[in-house]
């Protein structure tokens, strides 16, 4: 790690810390952006680095969302009565109850999906290629459909998460959730960056490039695949828990297990930025969030049409993403040694 990158990191950190005070109107948008970056970066661990393109990380995200809210309510009040009363506030959290519940809820929201990923990992990660993709797609949709039929978490009518306690109004709520999601982002970045400097990343890349050969080299691929997926699940659950509190309302298919939106978004963001790079998903998520907000503002009603077109265009014309394109254009910047004569010859050939 050289001096320049330290300056970059500190700059981003400082910007992140002061951003809600510079742009007070965009606090919620910035919090959502942080959550999106967390999702894209962790999707990239198994989607980009390991080559297991999952549509099913939404499972952990939705699970985290429901778990966090349920723990937050269930610690102090009967859960069934809470969901039955719907939006009417028969029970009110005191500030300390709210924050304790949130802390406990986030821990549960991160840990339980990790365990779930570990348990189902052995069966699911044995699937290869498109079977894995479709299977995880099925998992996500099944989770949404089933959770929509369970009474205690609100079934079809949804689940209202505990409202933010009445201290400082909307401003305090926005700042709290912004710093929570920014904290999650910093945690994710540090963890992922640490992972990417170890042998673990090389093993994941070996699995992506040729799993059979990696196995023949004596790597216990299954162990590494499961741990890769568990890391993804941990951060997805955490992001889900935060997002549940931020949105304030959980619906089984429209908010939590929203495979049609969030489940595809995380894949798209990673692909837009460039799979298999540290910065790709972060840049991709930022760009995507701008695009998306633009669509949602200017093409209201047509946003899904625009989204569908965007998916097709990105996938067909930019499958390598922004980082892939840059890498092709400026290979020296990425530490690849380029033979000048060879490059000239290639240019002439073109």
């Amino acid at each position, binding site marked *: 790690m050289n001096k320049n990158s330290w300056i970059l990191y500190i700059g981003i950190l400082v910007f992140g810390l002061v951003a809600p005070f510079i742009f007070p109107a965009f606090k919620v948008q910035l919090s959502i952006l942080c959550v999106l970056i967390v999702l894209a970066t962790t999707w990239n661990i198994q989607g980009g680095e390991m080559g297991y393109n999952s549509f099913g990380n939404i499972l952990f995200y939705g699970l985290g969302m429901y778990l966090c809210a349920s723990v937050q309510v269930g610690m102090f009040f009967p859960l069934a009565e809470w969901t039955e009363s719907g939006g009417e506030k028969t029970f009110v959290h005191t500030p300390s109850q709210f924050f304790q519940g949130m802390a406990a809820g986030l821990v549960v929201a991160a840990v339980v999906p990790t365990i779930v990923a570990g348990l189902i990992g052995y069966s699911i990660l044995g699937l290869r290629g498109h079977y894995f993709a*479709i299977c995880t797609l099925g998992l996500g949709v099944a989770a*949404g459909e089933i959770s929509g039929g369970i009474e205690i978490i609100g079934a079809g009518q949804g689940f209202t998460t505990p409202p933010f306690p009445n201290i400082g109004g909307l401003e305090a709520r926005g700042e709290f959730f912004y710093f929570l999601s920014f904290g999650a982002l910093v945690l994710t970045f540090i963890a992922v960056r640490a992972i990417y400097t170890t042998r673990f990343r090389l093993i994941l890349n070996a699995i992506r490039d040729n799993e059979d050969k990696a196995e023949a080299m004596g790597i216990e691929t299954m162990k590494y695949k499961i741990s890769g997926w568990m890391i993804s699940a941990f951060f997805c659950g955490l992001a889900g828990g935060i997002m549940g509190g931020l949105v304030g309302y959980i619906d089984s298919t429209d908010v939590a297990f929203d495979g049609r939106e969030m489940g595809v978004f995380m894949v798209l963001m990673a692909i837009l930025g460039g799979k298999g790079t540290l910065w790709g998903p972060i840049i991709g998520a930022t760009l995507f969030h701008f695009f998306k907000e633009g669509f949602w503002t200017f093409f209201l009603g*047509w946003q*899904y049409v625009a989204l569908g077109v965007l998916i097709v265009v990105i*996938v067909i014309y930019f499958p390598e993403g922004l980082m892939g394109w840059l890498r092709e254009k400026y290979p020296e910047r990425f530490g690849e040694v380029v033979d000048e004569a060879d490059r000239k010859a290639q240019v002439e050939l073109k």
Partner: protein
Amino acid sequence: MDFLVFQYPMITIQACLDGLLLGILFALIAYGMALQWGVMNIINIAQGDLVILGGYIAYFMYLYGIHPAWGVIVSPIIMYFVGIAIYKLVINKVVDRDLFISILATFGISILFMQLMNFAFGADVVLANSGYGTTMLFDNNVVLPNSKIFSAFISIVFAICLVVYMKRSKLGRAIRATAQNARAAKILGVDTEKVYAATFGINAALCGVAGALISITFTIHPYMGLPYTIRSFMIVIVAGLGNLPGVAISGMGLGIFEEFADYILGTEFRIGSVFLLLVLILVYRRFKLSRKREYLK
């Protein structure tokens, strides 16, 4: 939980017959899926949305006073050209690429279609009433709408026509040759680009037939597409590519499974149980295959 299924044999018979007739329709959609998967090696997530679009064509004829059964003729003709258009715009760019690219690209098409249909036809659940009446069996204990029998019959007719066409016609031979070895077919003068376009068009036409039948027998809704895709995918992996009797049998099996899941678990878990079944089948398949691999070791 409803244990009536075990107490009243008539409900069991009802569920089996309903499931069989439904399953024949699923098999028709799955046949299209198997065709494009085998020939072009792509998985089309938008399959179900093509089905729903075909259904809306029949529904529109019904709205304008034409009997919706004619949709069975009109819908595939329109859908054939829709399929060709999709192929020319998107699919021909993803044919030789990674399978995941095709999954994601067709996912995009699926979202696009869903929303366009939502704009064009509204978000209501609709049904084209055929007015065929019902058939009563076993002392009026089992009720079968004639439209279901009609749709199963038409599906079988179309499936047989297609099988004969694939066996006898020149294009059918070209399609089969391309599926076996695209490169060799190209060398021998088959225009594979044309074959791919025709395959996708035929697939879309099959979806159109199935959709028209679904709009007569069941209901259609812009967001109902994905379950049909998943069902056809499931049927194809259970049966294996290019195994037509297998596709028919596993389609009917799936139909019966769904009817029973509907009775036993309740309607709200119907779609969920289909997706869970998919996961279970894939996991079962994975363990079966891994046993074989260890044996080889």
